[in-house]
C-alpha cells in the first residue's frame, strides 16, 4: 500500500512536470519562430542567442522524454499495485499508453534535432524537421486529456483542450526563454541588445496566447462546471477559480513587463526593463508553474457537471472559512484511538467525533502559530522593532507541537515506542522528518533574516513555500465522501494559492529589495514582501478557523 501511494503521488506530480516540459518545447519553437525569427531571411538573431534558445528547447525535449517515459512506467506500477497483477496486454491497448508512447518517441526525435541545431543553429532543414515533429506532439495531447473519456462532444472537447494547452505552453515557454535570455544578457552583448526587443516582441505573442486561453477556456469551463455551486462547491470548480486568480496575477506581471517595454520603445528608458522586469518575470514563472500544476490536477478531478448532487453549496464552503472560536482543547488519546476502527471501516462505518475534534485542535493551534508569526513578521517592517525579525522562531515552536501531536499512537504520548514507530511505519517516519525539517527551517530562516552573510540561504524559504503550495494544489483531490472531502480540500486549495503568492512575493522582495535601498525596484520589493507576509497571515487564519466536517 505504501509503494502504491508513492507511485500514485509520482504519477500525479509527473502530470505537472510533463506540462512544464511540453510548454518548454512548444514555447521554445514559437520563440524561435517569432522572437528570434529563425525562419526569416532578413532579421536573424545572433547565432549565440539562437543557440541559447535551442538549449532550452533541447532541455524541454529531454525533460519531456524522461517524464513521459517515467509516466508510462509509473502508471504500470500503479496498475500492478492496485490490481495485484500486471495485465500488460490490456495496458498496452489503452489509448493512454499509445498516446503517451507517441509523445515519448516524438520527444526523443526532438532531442536529436535540437542537438544538431546546437551545432548548426542556422540549418533551415533541421528547423523544419523540428516543426514537423512538434505538430503531432501537440495533437497527441488530445488523447491524454479529460475529453477523451467523455460521451458527448468528445472531439470538440479534445480539440478545445489541446488548443488551451498550446496557448498556455506558448506563454510559459516564452517566459522561460525570456528568463534564459536575461541571464545570458549579463555576459553577452548580443543577448543584451536583444533583451528589450524580445520583451516588446513577446508582448503580442503573450496577448495572443491569453486570447486563445480565454476563447477555449470559457466553453470548457461551461461544459465541465455548468453552475455556481459547481464552480465554488466542487474540487474541479475551485481549482478553476484558483487557476483564474493565479492567471490574473501572472497577467499583472505581464502587463508591467509590457509597460516597461513600451517605455523603452518610446523613451529608451532602461531602468524598468533592466532592473525590474527580470524579477517580475521570475515571479511570473513561479505563478505559471503553479497554474500548470493546477491544470494537471484538473485532469484527475471529476468535472463538477457530473457530480451535481454531491456539490457543496456556496454557503457551506463559506462556512469552512468563517471565523469560529478556535478549539483549544483536545480529546484524549484514548478517545481518539477508540473511534478509529469504526471511522476507517468500509462496512459499518461510524464517524468519529473525537477524530474530528483532534484534527480541529491540531489545525487551530497550528493556525495560532502562523497567525502570530504573520503579525510579528508585519511588525518586523518597522525598523525600530528589531526583535520582530525573529518571527521564524514560530516554526521551531510549531515543530515541537507537531512532534507531540502528529501520531497519537506513538511515542512520546502514545503506547508505541520511538524506534519501533519511526522505523516500523513509513508514515510516522515521514512525520518525524517533517517535524525535524520544520525545526531546521525555523533556525535557517532566522539566520537568513538576521545575517547578511547567509545570502543564498534566504531563497530556501520561498522555494519551499512554492513547492509546498504547488503540492497542496496538485493533491486537491476527492475520494470516498466527495462533498465532505471537498469541504476539507477547499481549505487546502486556498492555502495552496496563498502559499504560491507568498513564495513569489518573498522572492520578489529578495530580488528587488534584498540588497540595496537605491535599487530601482526597492519600494516594489518591500510591497511584495508585505503581500507575502499577508498571505502567511491568511494561511494562519484559514487554519485557525478550520472546522472539519464529521464523516
Amino acid at each position, binding site marked *: 500500500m505504501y509503494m*502504491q*501511494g*508513492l507511485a*500514485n*503521488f509520482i504519477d500525479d506530480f509527473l502530470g505537472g512536470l510533463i506540462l512544464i516540459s511540453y510548454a518548454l518545447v512548444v514555447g521554445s519553437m514559437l520563440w524561435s519562430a517569432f522572437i528570434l525569427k529563425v525562419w526569416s531571411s532578413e532579421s536573424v538573431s545572433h547565432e549565440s542567442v539562437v543557440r541559447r534558445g535551442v538549449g532550452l528547447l533541447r532541455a524541454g525535449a529531454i525533460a519531456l522524454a524522461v517524464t513521459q517515459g517515467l509516466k508510462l512506467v509509473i502508471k504500470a506500477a*500503479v496498475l500492478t499495485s*492496485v490490481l495485484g497483477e500486471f*495485465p500488460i496486454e*490490456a*495496458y498496452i*491497448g*489503452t489509448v*493512454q499508453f499509445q498516446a503517451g508512447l507517441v509523445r515519448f518517441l516524438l520527444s526523443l526525435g526532438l532531442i536529436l534535432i535540437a542537438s544538431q541545431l546546437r551545432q548548426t543553429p542556422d540549418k533551415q532543414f533541421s528547423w523544419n524537421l523540428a516543426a514537423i515533429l512538434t505538430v503531432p506532439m501537440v495533437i497527441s495531447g488530445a488523447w491524454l486529456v479529460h*475529453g*477523451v*473519456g*467523455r*460521451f458527448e462532444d468528445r472531439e470538440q472537447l479534445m480539440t478545445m483542450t489541446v488548443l488551451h494547452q498550446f496557448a498556455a505552453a506558448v506563454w510559459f515557454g516564452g517566459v522561460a526563454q525570456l528568463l534564459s535570455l536575461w541571464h545570458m544578457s549579463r555576459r553577452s552583448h548580443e543577448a543584451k541588445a536583444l533583451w528589450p526587443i524580445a520583451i516588446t516582441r513577446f508582448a503580442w505573442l503573450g496577448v495572443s496566447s491569453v486570447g486563445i486561453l480565454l476563447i477555449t477556456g470559457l466553453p470548457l469551463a461551461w461544459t465541465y462546471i455548468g453552475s455556481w455551486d459547481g464552480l465554488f462547491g466542487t474540487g474541479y470548480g475551485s481549482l478553476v477559480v484558483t487557476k483564474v486568480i493565479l492567471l490574473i496575477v501572472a497577467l499583472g506581471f505581464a502587463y508591467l513587463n509590457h509597460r516597461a517595454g513600451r517605455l523603452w520603445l518610446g523613451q529608451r528608458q532602461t531602468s524598468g526593463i533592466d532592473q525590474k522586469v527580470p524579477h517580475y518575470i521570475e515571479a511570473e514563472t513561479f505563478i505559471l508553474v503553479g497554474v500548470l500544476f493546477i491544470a494537471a490536477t484538473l*485532469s*484527475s*478531478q*471529476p468535472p463538477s457537471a457530473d*457530480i451535481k448532487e*454531491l456539490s457543496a453549496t456556496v454557503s457551506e464552503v463559506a462556512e469552512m472559512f468563517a471565523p469560529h472560536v478556535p478549539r483549544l482543547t483536545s480529546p484524549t488519546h484514548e478517545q481518539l484511538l477508540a473511534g*478509529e476502527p469504526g*471511522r476507517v471501516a*468500509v*462496512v*459499518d462505518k461510524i464517524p468519529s467525533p473525537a477524530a474530528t475534534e*483532534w*484534527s480541529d485542535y*491540531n*489545525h487551530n493551534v497550528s493556525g495560532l502559530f*502562523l497567525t502570530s508569526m504573520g503579525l510579528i513578521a508585519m511588525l518586523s517592517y518597522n525598523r525600530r522593532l528589531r526583535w520582530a525579525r525573529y518571527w521564524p522562531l514560530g*516554526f521551531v515552536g*510549531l515543530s515541537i507541537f507537531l512532534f507531540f*501531536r*502528529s*501520531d497519537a499512537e506513538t511515542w512520546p504520548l502514545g503506547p508505541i515506542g520511538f524506534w519501533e514507530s519511526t522505523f516500523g*511505519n*513509513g*508514515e510516522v517516519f*515521514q*512525520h518525524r*522528518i*517533517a517535524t525535524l*525539517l520544520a525545526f531546521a527551517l525555523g533556525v535557517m530562516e532566522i539566520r537568513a533574516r538576521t545575517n547578511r552573510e547567509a545570502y543564498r540561504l534566504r531563497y530556501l524559504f520561498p522555494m*519551499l*513555500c512554492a513547492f*509546498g503550495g504547488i*503540492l*497542496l494544489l496538485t493533491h486537491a*483531490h476527492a*475520494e*470516498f465522501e466527495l462533498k465532505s472531502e471537498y469541504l*476539507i480540500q477547499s481549505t*487546502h486549495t486556498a492555502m495552496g494559492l496563498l*502559499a504560491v503568492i507568498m513564495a513569489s512575493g518573498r522572492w520578489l522582495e529578495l530580488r528587488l529589495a534584498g540588497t540595496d535601498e537605491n535599487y530601482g525596484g526597492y519600494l516594489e520589493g518591500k510591497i511584495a514582501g508585505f503581500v507575502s507576509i499577508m498571505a502567511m497571515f491568511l*494561511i494562519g487564519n484559514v*487554519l485557525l478557523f478550520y472546522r472539519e466536517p464529521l464523516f
Partner: protein
Amino acid sequence: MHQSIAFRRNKLVFLLFFICLSLAYGERLWAHAVVTESSLAQNPIQPNHATTVVLFFNSNVELPLSRVFLVSKGDVFHPVQIEKGKKPGEMRIHVPSLAPGEYALKYKVFAADGHFTENVIRFHVSEPR
C-alpha cells in the same frame, strides 16, 4: 493507522516540506471516474438471490484494468465478476446471493483518460418480508 487522518493533522507540514509530502499519500487514489447512476438506488438487493448491479460512470472505463470487490461485515473482501454494459459508461457487476446485512461494493476503475478511481458504495440487504 489510516492515511487520511494523518494527512489532515499535518497539513501545515505538507505546506512546507514537499519531500515528506511526496511520501504521504499512502492509500489515496484519484477520483475521476464517478458513478452517476446505480441500480441499487431503484432496485435494492433481495436476500438470498444472486443479482446484477448496474453502475453508470461519467467516463469510459477500461474494464480489463478495473476490479470490483464485495465487502462484507468485518471488511472481508471478495472479488466479483464485472462486464461491460450496452450503454456508454455502463458496468454490470455480478453479486452473489447475500444474507440480510450490511455490505459494500468497492471498485477500482481505470478511466479512459488514464486515471484510477477507488470508491465504495455501501448498501443494505433487508430481511425477507
